[in-house]
């Protein structure tokens, strides 16, 4: 009977081993499964670039680099130049930064350095809600509130004070570059505020304490010590906001005025890359027309990728430095 008992033992040991290997296989399986899904993200992003590149081939071959410098956009004559859209995109985004950055940085300094923690937390919560408002809602509100406001009050006021500048000449219909830039400024505000606030809060406490101990006021500490320390991260948040503004579609489409010409006046209607795609793509007849719009999407993709990558780099650098010191 001894032999059966050892057989039994062997069987038990074999089973246990099988269990262990099976569980190890489980580890392997979990790794492979998550690896596959994680890799899918890279595949999707690669496919995204590939599809844009492939589908814009016709336009790239037909126009070459002239596509980027051409100023005429005439679908009837099959002449496609992207410059008016690039101009509109850059001008509205620049306006957004000019209006939004001081406001956003000011608010984030207040929330991170000067406000009592309870108020700061409550405001940060509301700012996060503001970031959740969809772009089409901003557009809806802008059409019916900001457009008449710009037409009837802001544009006449600017014209009577700064009208000697070519930027503020000509009639205003309410829709145009200025209105689009203003909406964008409001839309990027929550991004600048929440990221800058976080970057400022990551600055080590010793920096503040040292400054305050030397007799500096709260504001002096914030402005001369904390902000310089977090500078790269704040600039990163601005670039991230810029990337948002460049790619923002719906709100801009609804108020920019849809005029594919380069106008120097900010009151004049304009057009952005995202807006022209949104308006014309679904109804674009013909291969070349569609390829030209897809090439615009490719241009927009490349611009935002570059701006984004730069922004991430800056943010990583500051938060690393801040945590390394603490």
């Amino acid at each position, binding site marked *: 009977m001894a032999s059966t008992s050892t057989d039994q033992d062997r069987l038990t040991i074999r089973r246990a081993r099988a269990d262990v290997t099976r569980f190890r296989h489980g580890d392997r399986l979990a790794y492979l499964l998550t690896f596959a899904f994680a890799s899918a993200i890279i595949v999707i992003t690669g496919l995204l670039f590939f599809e844009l590149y492939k589908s814009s081939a016709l336009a790239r071959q037909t126009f070459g680099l002239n596509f980027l410098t051409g100023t005429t956009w005439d679908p009837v004559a099959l002449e496609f130049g992207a410059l008016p859209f690039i101009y509109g995109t850059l001008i509205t985004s620049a306006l957004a930064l000019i209006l939004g950055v001081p406001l956003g940085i000011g608010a984030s300094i207040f929330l991170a350095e000067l406000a009592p923690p309870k108020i700061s937390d409550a405001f940060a919560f509301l700012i996060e809600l503001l970031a*959740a408002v969809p772009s089409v809602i901003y557009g809806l509100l802008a059409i019916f509130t900001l457009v008449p406001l710009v037409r009837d009050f802001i544009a006449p006021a600017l014209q009577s004070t700064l009208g000697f500048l070519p930027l503020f000449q000509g009639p205003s219909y309410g829709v145009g570059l200025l209105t689009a830039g203003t909406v964008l400024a409001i839309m990027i505000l929550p991004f600048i505020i929440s990221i800058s606030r976080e970057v400022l809060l990551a600055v080590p406490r010793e920096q503040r304490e040292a400054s305050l101990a030397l007799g500096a006021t709260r504001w002096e500490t914030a402005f001369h010590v904390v902000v310089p320390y977090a500078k790269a991260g704040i600039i990163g948040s601005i670039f991230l906001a810029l990337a948002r503004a460049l790619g923002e579609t719906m709100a801009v489409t609804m108020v920019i005025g849809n005029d594919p010409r380069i106008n120097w006046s900010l009151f004049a209607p304009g057009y952005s890359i995202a807006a022209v795609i949104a308006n014309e793509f679904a109804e674009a007849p013909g291969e070349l027309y569609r390829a030209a719009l897809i090439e615009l999407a490719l241009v927009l993709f490349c611009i935002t990728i570059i701006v984004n990558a730069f922004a991430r780099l800056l943010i990583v650098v500051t938060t690393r430095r801040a945590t390394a010191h603490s």
Partner: protein
Amino acid sequence: MISRKTRRKATNIVMFTVTGICALVAVSVLFFILGYLVWQGGRALNWDFFTRLPTPVGETGGGFANAIVGSAKLLLLASLIGVPIGFLGGVYLAEFGGSAWGFAVRYTTDLLNGVPSIVIGIFMYALIVLPMKHFSTLAGGVALGVMMIPIAVRSTEEFLRAVPNSLREAALALGATKWQALVTVVIPAAMRGIITGIMLDLARVAGETAPLLFTAFSNRFWSPGWNQPIASLPVMIFNYAISPYEDWHQQAWAAGLVLLSLIMITNVSARLILRRHTHGSH
């Protein structure tokens, strides 16, 4: 002469006020948006909005019933794409993400997050609409699903990393293998955070318009199945807001109010849950 000390103190107070006003302006924008939508949308909202189809041009009345169902269907499809990739991708980054490949995935996720939504729309047009030769619910849902991925990945990763290492070690010390520890201890501990993260993600794509314009397109009627163009709340708001008809503007306000209410309710409740979660664990 004003002393240097007085001037510095005065600057302190002035700048406190100025930056405080900046913060107030930002917050008041939110209250303006909410207040204006409740005022305009509240007037236009009625029962028909939820139960009836859009009326033909020139006829007043009608509702957005098809757009409400359409948005729900698109979000369902988006979750089917975005949640598995986002969740499992996040698990990979949290548990095995130290490698060079992990770095590449993390970086690509950030890139994808920065891609303008209109570009995602073009991508899905080229990938799905063009081969199928027509707009479809499928294409719109996949577009929204791809938009969901980056946030789902990053929030899953963050919440998994927030699980204390002692829990992991305790499970491993009891003889659990890595995946057993993951499935029975680590993921359940992070589950509440992960689910709220996905809720926030859904609320975000629920308002996306641009990726739907040439994938799901729009539809004035019901859209059975997954193979036809379909109406959605954001696209209807866009179409109605830029139309010249006063009655349509009213409907756009009503739709805006409904959409924003859903998004705000989701956001507030998710963030309150998260807050309690983080406060409780400290």
